[in-house]
């Protein structure tokens, strides 16, 4: 029965809200490894997954066999780990079930990711260690979240009936529907923000694409600083709409009059008020404080860590974007020396030194950021799920 279920499950991948694709096969593997011995697990999960792959993506011998073999091995390893750690369903508890299963799931994920990164590394002749660690980190949280459900299903399988698994499968199309709708809403949200950004750029002298590029720079810098997805999301939205208060400025106002601080401040305030329509506090705060200076000589006089980190990032991105745009095209894939000097000079007075370092690292590692039509895949709002084996 497991073979059939896993075959079915691996045929219907569910898009992951955080990019990529998840299948619920992981949950099934974990149930399987609780109730059967490693050898059975190897055969059943390997055959099931290979079959599912073959049916849904076509029969390509090496790929099907590789997919089946690597998953079978991962699951068998995890199953051995579960047994070694004393996992059992006799008297389920934290020590007898939850802990062993959690560790087993980690073993499964680690070996699964290892096989895949090793294989692709070999295919592309690239070192695989780093991509292995990255993959492991990326999928860690999703993986751990499946553990409680798997534990429950395993107990139900033993104590009530194996048929309870079918009941669980019935709920999946609904979940899948919700996730797809979620992704659609996310895309719509991106479009709605996009039209606002167009309007903002149109009525502001910095011109077309400014907000989008500031957002790209801010997002990359925030990622480099190791912020979580949800925080990066907030920074992206705020960076996109940071100039929204400028919509009210008349076109007749010359840029030197914009320097008039009280009037300018008014527009920053108005912009923050508009941004507060989004039910996330961080967005409004970033818009309000993105003109603060690190040493406290800005409009509102906030200093250092009093300024929200997101606002410090957007402040740097906002200052850097025109510099990059106006730097000579001959400088190609690296930042112009004079630009780097200007940014470095600002560290500690205008900008947070930590943010400056992060930005310069990104600029070195990812030169695409420096081109005006920068890489849209850096944006979470337009990211499309990519398929992955």
């Amino acid at each position, binding site marked *: 029965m497991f073979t059939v279920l896993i075959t079915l499950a691996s045929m219907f991948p569910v898009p992951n809200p955080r990019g990529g694709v998840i299948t619920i096969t992981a949950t099934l593997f974990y149930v399987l490894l609780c109730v059967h011995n490693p050898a059975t697990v190897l055969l059943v999960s390997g055959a099931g997954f290979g079959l599912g792959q073959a049916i849904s993506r076509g029969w390509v011998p090496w790929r099907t066999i590789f997919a089946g073999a690597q998953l079978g091995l991962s699951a068998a390893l995890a199953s051995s780990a579960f047994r070694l750690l004393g996992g059992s369903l006799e008297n389920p508890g934290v020590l007898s*079930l939850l802990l062993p299963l959690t560790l087993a799931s980690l073993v499964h994920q680690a070996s699964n990711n290892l096989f895949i990164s090793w294989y692709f590394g070999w295919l592309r002749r690239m070192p695989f260690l780093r991509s292995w660690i990255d993959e492991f980190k990326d999928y860690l949280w999703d993986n751990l979240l499946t553990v409680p459900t798997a534990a429950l299903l395993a107990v139900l399988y033993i104590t009530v009936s194996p048929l309870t698994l079918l009941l669980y499968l019935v709920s999946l199309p609904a979940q899948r529907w919700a996730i797809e709708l979620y992704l659609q809403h996310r895309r719509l949200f991106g479009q709605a923000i996009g039209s606002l950004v167009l*309007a903002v750029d149109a009525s502001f002298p910095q011109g077309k694409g400014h907000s989008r590029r500031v957002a790209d720079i801010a997002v990359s810098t925030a990622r480099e600083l190791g912020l979580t997805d949800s925080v990066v999301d907030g920074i992206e939205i705020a960076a996109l709409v940071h100039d929204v208060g400028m919509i009210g400025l008349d076109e007749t106002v010359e840029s030197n009059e914009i320097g008039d601080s009280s009037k300018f401040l008014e527009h920053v305030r108005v912009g923050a008020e508009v941004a507060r329509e989004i039910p996330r506090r961080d967005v409004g705060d970033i818009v309000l404080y993105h003109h603060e200076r690190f040493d406290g000589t800005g409009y509102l006089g906030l200093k250092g860590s009093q300024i929200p980190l997101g606002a410090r990032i957007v402040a740097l991105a906002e200052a850097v974007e025109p510099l990059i745009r106006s730097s000579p095209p001959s400088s190609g894939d690296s930042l112009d020396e004079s630009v780097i000097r200007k940014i470095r000079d600002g560290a500690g007075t205008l900008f947070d030194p930590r943010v400056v370092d992060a930005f310069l690292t990104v600029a070195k590692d990812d030169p695409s950021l420096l081109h005006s039509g920068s890489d849209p895949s850096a944006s979470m709002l337009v990211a499309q799920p990519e398929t992955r084996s």
Partner: protein
Amino acid sequence: MSASGRIYAAILRATGSFAIVGAASLVLWRGVTLQDFVIVALMVPTTWVRINLEPKGYVTLAPLVVFTGFLLADTAVALFVAAVSPLVGAAASGRQQWTNSLGEAGGEAIAALAGIVLVSLVGLQLRTPGSVGWLAPFVLASASYICLRFLLAAVDAKLSEGVRLLTYSNAAGKSIAENLALLALLAVGVSYLGAAYGQSNYFMLAIATIAIVEAYNPFKQLSDQRDVLFASLGMVAHAIDLKDAYTGRHARDASDIAVRIARAMRLSEPEVRKIKFAGMLHDIGKIGVSGKIIRKPSSLNVAEMTEMRRHPVIGAEIMRPVELLAEASEIVMHHHEHFDGSGYPDGLRGEQIPVGSRIVLVADAFNAITTDRPYQKARSKAEALKVLRSHAGTQFDPQVVKALEGVIHLVP
């Protein structure tokens, strides 16, 4: 909001506060067992999953714990969980509208209390599943809980948004009833598990609850993203108002009025939603018109007028490529058509004009008259209505103006 709406909300809030204090002291007086503690603790993750419904209302997973409480714990514990869950949910998700949460607490408490009282009136007693005669009281209690939650949500939607009972039953009301019924079923399963492993084995109870929370998670994310999406439209609307001489609430208020009128005219909910978006974004085309013209206090010359009159067309063009707004773009396109055919851009007349456009035109005008603008002080609602009435049949659709009269006490 109408007076009856305010009174209703106040009653709910008072009930909520009273129920929390009452149930808490009852539980404390009787003595807290480990099991009570576990059940209250399980409530925390379930309140985190909150799904907001259109047009009004919500579902959380907290009833799962309430129903489990009916079966496994003392009724006072169940009542406490029900009443306190909206507040815990608000704290867990960082929403800080405590008055709203207190009102929701009142609704939950009334629903739970109804179940408990009904069961004891009939002379039954809630018991652990599997023991003799456990089913009837549980069905009675959970059914009356579901009925009351449904009713209270419908009344709330009626009073605060003007949604009719039948419309509500087909939309949010249905989701509330279905989800709560499903949660009642799941609660039976969870309680069976908890009971089967002996009173001391709370591990299964916790695992089962967390697995259910996990399964509902995609729906929560969907609901959150929908809220952000709608909020972003509010943000766009707010930004448009900056361009104009309004104080920043015109677009939203006009949209609220338009929705009221649309509901009074008994349009379908999808149509109402379209009108809501169109009302918010009706002036989005002004983004492309020079601010000097928009704010000019004196009358415009011919060239300026031509420029100004392009804004419905520009607006429709901006909205059309955005999937969510494509339907509403038609309404925006024609929101300056007059009933007698003297409007722009196409000079449509009467029924040729989309009903949404006719409504938005009236709502826009009404809100413009009743708010302060640079060249005109705000006038009272009665005066505004008089102006609208005098132009009914020429500029405005008489039916729409009449519908506005019917809901005038409800609009801001």
